[in-house]
């Protein structure tokens, strides 16, 4: 590789990694506890999924109408907004509010056990894991923060690619996984940076790409949902909104939706008049039954009065691909051993980032030519870099 080419890739690598470094370190550090969120939630007693015994609420239990009546009895005068199901336990949540279009801060989230019908009280608020997740997703800044972190993810991918290009000239005279820890500190850092970077490359590329995809896919999915629901309910456009008193049986609606979409479990129901449905429908959002398909939402709009299925929407292929890549980012789809591997790889990435910062920081002015010489020689040049 020519000096000019190395210089180009060195500059790309330097800036594409320096700019997102702080954010990537934050993402790694907040990501570590998130890998183990199931275990941590269970230890903190915030995880009903692991403490309630019985069939998953998405599959069966007491009638939905019974559960809804219990929820409304706890919140007299209010209307139902959402009902959400668990795929792992009898936990069932009902969201109520003063009116069908109530804003988020007027909503109440109630927890129930669908196997016994017991009320578990209001949802535990927030919790430390929730805050960590928010930091990791958008730094508590909402959509702009999310998109910003998405851009940092893309920069990370560019850093990985340029780093791989530079790996070749550096390693010309070195064997794979050479670690010269007893030479200078600089050579030790270079070798560790290169070895850890190249060994974790495939995993880091997947994490960076799926992280960026997640940041950009959620707004896309919201957009798809809004336009799709509007299209599906055009026939009802002129009709007056359905009065909550006239809502028909949820169980009948669920039965006809399941008949249309066999083999799938519901994730949640959007009640009429809310942002996730029309003014006349129960919008039942079904999900796939495997890790690969669990993020593929298929909404069935069921007439809330007659329980007849009005329409079923399938996600466009592009949204499907985006949503299917989601679990690849989390590493929580194949049991505890995979999570431990995920955590080890995250620690290795932190060390790559840190040694990278030190390699950039501990330098003298006008060092770029020495850097290029260093990359070309595999770090064996005697000149102090």
């Amino acid at each position, binding site marked *: 590789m020519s000096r000019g080419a190395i210089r180009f890739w060195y500059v790309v690598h330097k800036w594409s990694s320096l700019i997102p470094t702080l954010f990537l370190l934050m993402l790694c550090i907040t990501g570590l506890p998130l890998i183990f969120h199931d275990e941590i939630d269970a230890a903190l007693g915030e995880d009903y999924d692991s403490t309630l015994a019985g069939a998953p609420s998405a599959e069966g239990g007491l009638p939905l109408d019974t559960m809804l009546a219990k929820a409304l009895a706890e919140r007299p005068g209010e209307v139902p907004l959402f009902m959400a199901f668990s795929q792992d336990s009898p936990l069932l949540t009902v969201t109520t509010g003063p009116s069908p279009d109530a804003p988020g801060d007027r909503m109440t989230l109630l927890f129930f056990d669908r196997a016994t019908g017991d009320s578990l009280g209001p949802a535990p608020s927030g919790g430390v894991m929730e805050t960590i997740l928010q930091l990791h997703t958008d730094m508590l800044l909402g959509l702009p923060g999310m998109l910003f972190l998405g851009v940092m993810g893309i920069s990370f991918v560019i850093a990985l690619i340029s780093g791989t290009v530079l*790996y*070749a000239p550096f*390693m*010309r*005279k*070195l*064997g*794979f*996984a*050479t*670690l*010269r*820890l*007893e*030479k*200078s*500190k*600089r*050579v030790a850092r270079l070798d560790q940076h290169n*070895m*850890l970077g*190249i*060994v*974790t*490359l*495939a*995993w880091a590329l*997947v994490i960076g790409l799926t992280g960026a995809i997640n940041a950009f896919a959620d707004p896309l999915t919201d957009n798809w949902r809004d336009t799709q629901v509007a299209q599906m309910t055009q026939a009802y456009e002129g009709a007056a909104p359905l009065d909550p008193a006239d809502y028909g049986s949820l169980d009948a609606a669920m039965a006809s939706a399941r008949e249309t979409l066999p083999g799938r479990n519901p994730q949640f129901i959007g009640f009429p008049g809310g942002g996730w449905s029309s003014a006349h429908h129960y919008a039942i959002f079904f999900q796939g039954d*495997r*890790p*690969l398909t669990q993020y593929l939402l298929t909404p069935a709009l069921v007439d809330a009065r007659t329980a007849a299925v009005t329409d079923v929407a399938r996600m466009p292929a592009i949204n499907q691909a985006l949503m299917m890549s989601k*679990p*690849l980012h989390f590493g929580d*789809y*194949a*049991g505890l*051993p*995979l999570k431990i*591997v995920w955590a*080890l*790889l995250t620690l*290795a990435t932190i060390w790559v980032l840190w040694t990278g910062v030190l390699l950039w920081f*501990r330098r003298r002015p006008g060092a770029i030519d020495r850097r290029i010489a260093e990359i070309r020689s*595999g770090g*064996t040049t*005697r000149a*102090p*870099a």
Partner: protein
Amino acid sequence: MSARRHPRSTRAIFAWPMFIAVLSLIGLVAGLTGDGARDVLAWLLLGSAPVTIAFAYWRAGRPARPINSPARTKAPSHDRA
């Protein structure tokens, strides 16, 4: 496996990294597409990366390298960055 006299080809340089990358990717997808045996496959294949890292550090810290052993304790000061 430290400094070599003859430069290695690009293919040789990327042989091990590509092998580990392919194992990792198969592991990632295996865990996603099924349970049970596929999960175990995911652990083993993706685990190849941390195992390689552990091996590299173990080999680097191993005292049985005659050329380096006299100067093991500290790098000479002129060599420092």
